């Protein structure tokens, strides 16, 4: 993964120098370990801080909307699918983008790493091949990357970008033997009382900070439904019902658009797995409408089209 850093810097410098793009969007190393930050570069001399490793879990497509300039951007599988979604939704034009594709081996779950070192302070992380070394004040431990992948990356079926102008590496083999909806199927088997309990517990820690909404590239409405006051559809308190309403509607707004990039879960300060909501919708859109978000910028999304013979069994 690390080898891409050099290639990214090189590519960004070239694109900016040739004036093929006005801005290049990538990541830089964060101020604390495991927290890489988005970086927008507008001059070749500033491109040296661009960086890439297995902690680039934020979604860069957040920075695409409302831009009118030419943009160079890094894209792995899920980010490129979000670009396709943006193109479908007229948030950006394809010819504004110069997409630099990276085959992605998956991002590491920073919470799992913190748990693995028993909450001791991590000062540095060094990645080497399929392992990474966690260094602290008086410890040093080596872990295998594969075992620490974010839960969405572990079951990812689109590791290679679907859209790109240039690839920085050879495409990876896609995982075909994974079941992305295993945990959803388990919940579906519960009775409604258990489901209620499960979701109440799931969101009980939510502090309504809206980090999940803000990190999500799909959330670009000028006025979010949570900020509407006349009428006010969602209560602003942390009453469980209000919180559940918020999470329900947030997920519903992502129906047929979510690429399961995992940014929402990654940024949640309370470690809530809100992908349990969006994944159910992903599963339903796939089963009912044979749709996976962002695979083709030419195709209309599932809620924008219909078939006369759509699923009708639930209607009397």
């Amino acid at each position, binding site marked *: 993964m690390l080898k891409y850093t050099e290639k990214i810097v090189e590519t960004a410098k070239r694109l900016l120098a040739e004036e093929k793009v006005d801005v290049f969007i990538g990541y830089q190393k964060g101020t604390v370990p495991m927290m890489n930050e988005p970086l927008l570069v507008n001059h070749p001399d500033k491109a040296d801080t661009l960086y890439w490793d297995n902690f680039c879990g934020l979604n860069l497509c957040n920075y695409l909307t409302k831009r009118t300039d030419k943009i160079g951007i890094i894209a792995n599988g899920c980010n490129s699918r979000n670009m396709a979604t943006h193109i479908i939704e007229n948030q950006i034009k394809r010819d504004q983008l110069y997409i630099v594709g990276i085959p992605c081996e998956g991002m590491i779950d920073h919470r799992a790493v913190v748990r693995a070192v028993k909450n001791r302070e991590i000062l540095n992380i060094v990645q080497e091949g399929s392992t990474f070394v966690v260094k602290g004040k008086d410890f040093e431990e080596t872990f295998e990357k594969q075992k620490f992948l974010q839960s969405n990356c572990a079951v990812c079926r689109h590791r290679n970008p679907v859209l790109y102008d240039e690839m920085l590496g050879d495409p990876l083999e896609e995982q075909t033997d994974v079941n992305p909806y295993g945990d959803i199927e388990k919940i579906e088997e519960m009775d409604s009382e258990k489901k209620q309990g499960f979701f109440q517990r799931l969101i009980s820690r939510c502090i309504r900070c809206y980090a999940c909404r803000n990190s999500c590239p799909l959330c670009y409405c000028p006025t979010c439904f949570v900020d509407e006051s006349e009428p006010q559809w969602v209560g602003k308190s942390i009453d469980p019902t209000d919180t559940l309403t918020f999470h329900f509607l947030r997920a519903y707004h992502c129906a047929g658009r979510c690429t399961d990039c995992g940014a929402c879960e990654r940024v949640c300060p309370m470690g809530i797995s809100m992908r349990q909501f969006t994944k159910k919708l992903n599963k339903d859109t796939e089963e009912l409408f044979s749709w996976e978000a962002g695979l083709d910028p030419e195709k209309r999304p599932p809620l924008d089209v*219909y078939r006369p013979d*759509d699923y009708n069994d*639930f*209607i009397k």
Partner: protein
Amino acid sequence: MENWEPKIATFLCNWCSYGAADLAGVSRFQYPPNFRIIRLPCSARVSPKFVLSAFRHGADGVWISGCHPGDCHYLEGNYYARRKFALLKGLLEHIGLEAGRLHFSWISSAEATKFVDVANRVAKEVEAMGPARFFIKSRAEVA
């Protein structure tokens, strides 16, 4: 609780199901009195927010009814609505709404008998579920 009667928020399309309810009334058909009918221009006007809001404010059931596929006054509104509803019902029941609380139907303005029939079934199913507890706020609503 002895005299408890379910309240069912009922969203009816102006061009069909609302007419069917009207016809049922004019024809003096009997159907349960549990429905609070809200008239809409089309079943596609129903937003998931309406459904959540109904449950949050104490509805024991929600029933949404529109025109038969192909008969939409706006040509295709109910086709889009059907896709929305499929996902809405799926997700609501996934997070714990009991299966008998949310109902959908296609009823044309001539089908007063179907309206009465579906109304009876919906009322019976919702009544069997008892008062709704899910999605009701535990604390008082502060405006």
